[in-house]
């Protein structure tokens, strides 16, 4: 590992890695050269994407020589445009969610929308009773993600970008035990 990579690794470990891991992701320094850091991200897309700007900020603050931070997924190469038009992917996802998910989660006052598509990564937002629900992760990982993966081969990843802490009416609230 180069000195630069070691410095970046140390900055990640000090500041952000626990948050990433806690959310189900992992980050590894794949390369650090010419001022550009390439980070390999695995695990939950929702663990890393919402923190992307913070990751870059932490690294650039800790390692002054860094001018850019790139995120890549193993096997996918650098983040790249999806072969499918983003609008098509978003529209297809929206149709599936409206037809097969939203009618069901309406029973819990919930609703899911497409927040956007970037480089084949679909971002969804949970609303109503799903926002802040203690079972939201179950709904996303066991329900929505497998459904969309099976229907949308162009989808590289799914990120739940919901601000769950801002939910004011979750269907289920957790209890401390």
């Amino acid at each position, binding site marked *: 590992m180069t000195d630069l990579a070691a410095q970046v*690794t140390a900055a*990640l*470990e000090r500041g*952000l*890695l*626990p*948050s990433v*891991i*806690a*959310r*189900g*992701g*992992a*980050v*590894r*320094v794949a390369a650090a050269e010419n001022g550009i850091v390439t980070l390999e*991200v*695995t*695990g*939950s*897309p929702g*663990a890393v994407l919402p923190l992307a700007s913070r990751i870059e900020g932490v690294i650039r603050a800790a390692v002054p020589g860094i001018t850019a931070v790139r995120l890549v*997924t*193993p*096997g*996918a190469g650098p983040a790249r445009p999806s072969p499918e038009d983003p609008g098509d992917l978003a529209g297809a996802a929206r149709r599936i969610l409206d037809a*097969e*998910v939203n009618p*069901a*989660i309406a*029973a*819990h006052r919930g609703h899911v929308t497409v927040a956007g598509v970037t480089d084949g990564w679909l971002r969804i937002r949970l609303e109503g009773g799903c926002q*802040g629900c*203690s*079972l*939201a*992760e*179950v*709904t996303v*990982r*066991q*329900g*929505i993600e*497998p*459904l969309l*993966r*099976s229907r949308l081969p162009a989808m*590289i*990843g799914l990120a739940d970008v919901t601000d769950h*802490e801002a939910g*004011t*009416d*979750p*269907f*289920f*609230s*957790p*209890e*401390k*035990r």
Partner: protein
Amino acid sequence: VTGTGAVLGGPVPIGPRLLLLVPARSYRAADFLLAAARMGLDLIVASDGALPIGGRPVIHVNPADPDGSIHRILARSGPVAAVVAADTPMLMLAAAVAERLGLPHNPADAVLNAADKARQRQRWAAAGVAQPRFEIVPAAADDVIRQAAEAVGFPCVVKAVSLSASQGILRADDPAAAVTAARRIRQILAAARRPHGEPLVVEEYLPGPELSIDGLLVGGDLTVTAIFDKPGMPDGPTFEETLLVTPSRLPPPVLAAAIATAGQAARALGLTRGPVHAELRIDDRGGQPRPAMLELAARCIGGLCSRALRFPGGKTLEELVLASALGRSVGAGWSGGHCQQVPAGHEPVRPAGVFMLPVPQSGVLRAVEGRDAALAVPGVTGLTITIPIGRHVDPLPGGDRYLGFIFAEGNTPEQAEQALAAARGRLRAVIQ
């Protein structure tokens, strides 16, 4: 810096199939799901809350209807390698399902013992486990409470047997206070819709430092995964758990004795496998520190506290729990001892801590101010507010919620503790 994650955009690795039972109202769902994803497990989820949507619908179960739940699971899950309960309400059902599937499991009686503070006390007394003097008071009348309190001595602690998270626990310094505490706890039990006539425990108050021990049982042997000190634990009348810091700074001989006590306590309840969370006090009267059991649960540490822990390879506590359930070794240094110290190389990677934000007063939570300032404290790694704005909240002993959790790390436990205290000082809950 790597973890063991499922690869995005590529084929998802399919490991053994594991059935996870997830109660609707738990903090623990996300962390177990994420752990399963990182391990590449073929996960089947059963829950009393989630809706059956998508390609892999959640199986609906009801802990109050084990037969119906088992029938649905058997019809839908296919063969599974292990059954894991994500939190307390699913423990009995998990044991029943595992038994029906012919998988290793805790005996049902052991799970019941761990869920009831009166049964715990009785089993530990029979096994000679160190614990406070106690009396179990059935459907207590005031004079019975008074007599029980006088029997254990003052100060004493009056406890509900079925509640958790410090709910329904009050210290009393004299007979009148004990009676008042019992009346208040009965009100709390009624509000929690517990069965009428549920007994109370009246026990000796033990002064001294408090700690929690988390571990994994395999064949009745305990491997410790984390020991948290609880600095700042109040002396009563309520017992908010706020600050947890690991690793413990207690002297090694005291820790060794505490671990041995926790292991003995788990076995006395009949538990043989899976996670345990034990709470002890180090009775420091008489100059000879002596660990004594307060409580033990057949689950991981509660709330989001496990997020303070990281193990080699970036593994989480939930990953260790799932690995153990699948029969995998959970750490280097495992030697199958009767009760074991933290295995070499298996300690949390860095000193860490968590601050559980208590509810300071009754009312409607309007805001939690100062979050950015709290997050800016060096060493703070996370802050999560878990009560929705607009909700009514109650403090202990009646409340059963914390406002949220602050996480921190440091080069030493002291650093982690100082970061948590500083962050806590920058937060202000607005409750009206």
